[in-house]
């Protein structure tokens, strides 16, 4: 056994001390109180994980999708000044635990039974969502995101029952290229052809779609 120098010992103690609080914190604590550099998720995403304004709903989202987003915030392929330091501060285990925590959180009732009625099929947002704008090569959103935008697997996220501000911000981020974590550039490519009016309309349409609990669990 090799002897440790005092400096090595101090480093070791520091590392243990620094990493201990966050690795010891359970997902619910991180979510509601934060841990170290990680601010409480609830402060933006809501206590129930329901999201607001430009902050997405996390409750009831696909765990694999949530985990990948945290990885992409850390790598920068999803460029976000707020989420980057948070994702950096979370260990791989914590990211998985947080993804699982929010995936298992029940979808808040207002998203399941929205106060505002769904927009009619004649709405321009409905048209884009259901049928697309093929004159510009844009498929209907539901062709990949599933019926009503409820999501398909871990790659095509739920876009129903998300705040309109969040959805619009993402389409703009794809369009600008500040969000670059889409497989096959599917979202960046089509978003470049979307007008501001279309972004607003389709975001409003999905925000009013009732949430459907993911399959295999309530």
């Amino acid at each position, binding site marked *: 056994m090799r002897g440790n120098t005092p400096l090595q010992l101090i480093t070791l103690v520091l590392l243990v001390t620094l990493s201990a609080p966050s690795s010891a914190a359970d997902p619910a604590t991180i979510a509601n109180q934060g841990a170290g550099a990680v601010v409480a998720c609830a402060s933006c995403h809501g206590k129930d994980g329901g999201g607001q304004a430009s902050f997405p709903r996390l409750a009831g989202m696909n765990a694999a999708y949530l985990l990948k987003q945290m990885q992409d915030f850390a790598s920068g392929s999803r460029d976000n000044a707020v989420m980057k330091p948070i994702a950096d501060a979370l260990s791989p285990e914590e990211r998985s635990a947080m993804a699982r925590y929010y995936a298992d959180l029940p979808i808040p009732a207002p998203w399941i039974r929205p106060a505002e009625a769904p927009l009619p099929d004649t709405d321009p947002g409905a048209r884009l969502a259901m049928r697309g704008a093929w*004159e510009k*090569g844009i498929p209907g959103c539901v*062709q*990949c995101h599933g*019926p009503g935008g*409820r999501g*398909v697997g871990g790659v095509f996220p739920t876009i129903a029952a998300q705040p309109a501000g969040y959805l619009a911000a993402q389409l703009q981020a794809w369009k600008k290229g500040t969000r670059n974590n889409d497989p096959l550039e599917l979202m960046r490519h089509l978003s470049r052809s979307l007008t501001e009016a279309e972004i607003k309309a389709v975001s409003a349409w999905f925000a009013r779609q009732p949430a459907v609990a993911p399959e295999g669990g309530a």
Partner: protein
Amino acid sequence: MNPCSKAIALAVIATMVLAGCGDIRPPRTAYRDKPASAAATPPPAAVAASSAVAGSFVPPDHADIPEGPFGDVVRRGRDIFTNTGEHAAAYVGNGLSCGNCHLDAGRLADSAPLWGAYVRYPAYRSKTGSVNNFTERLQGCFVYSMNGKAPAADSPEMLALETYSFWMSQGAPVGTTLPGAGYPKDFKPPQPPDYARGKSVFQENCALCHGEAGQGQQVAGRYVFPPLWGSDSYNWGAGMHQLDNAAGFIKANMPLGRGGSLSDQQAWDVAMYMNSQERPQDPRYTGDLAETRKQFHDDPNSLYGLEIDGRVLGTNPSR
């Protein structure tokens, strides 16, 4: 109205009539990149063009489907077309919908649009060795592409599909092959298609949606991404099993929303990979694979009955 403005008004009307825009409902003669005459306002549907193929026919928009009994049948046809398993369940034997291979509800150029097919029938078909009408052509889709059974010619389903096709084709010239009809067929791969290369193309560009085993992806018991082979896909008699059809469709339209992004070679390679997998048996199977190939698949674009990657295709059809 003074004589001068009256003359102008008459001239405008005359121009509109000449341009085919004098009717209450604008006739469907709009072609992309060929604007109507300067005096006539382009029909609204031109704004909602369905394809980016230069010179292709522009079908009417969904919003133009009229109210009333005729429109109701058009809408029923559209619903069957886009969700065939639900609205024509008795005739569908797999997990596909018409709209899977005929994108934008059968409106998209280079995706075998209905308006491209409707005006080409009746026609002689080498597949059947006889002149078929449009009804018989649609029945073939159910037998092969949908791996099901043909609705009777006078069934409500067939009437609805024909009405939808007719409505969509209004104003299209009869007896012509319009630009954008069928799938692009005018390109060949630089090298013969290759199974191994096709597998790589598939894994990199297709598996994301269609799954590693081409099985598609379902939500709530319905396919969102269609299965490309296996028991829920088209059978060995379907047009899509032909390499030229598949390569053309893929090149123009896949990955969804990224049409034209694969090279000609990649499109052919992945078409070969997809059509080198097992699928339901050709309903015309005689009981003998070689004999069936000789009778119905004597074509370099069909791999049925050939040995690919150590397997003779059609030997173990999916059930």
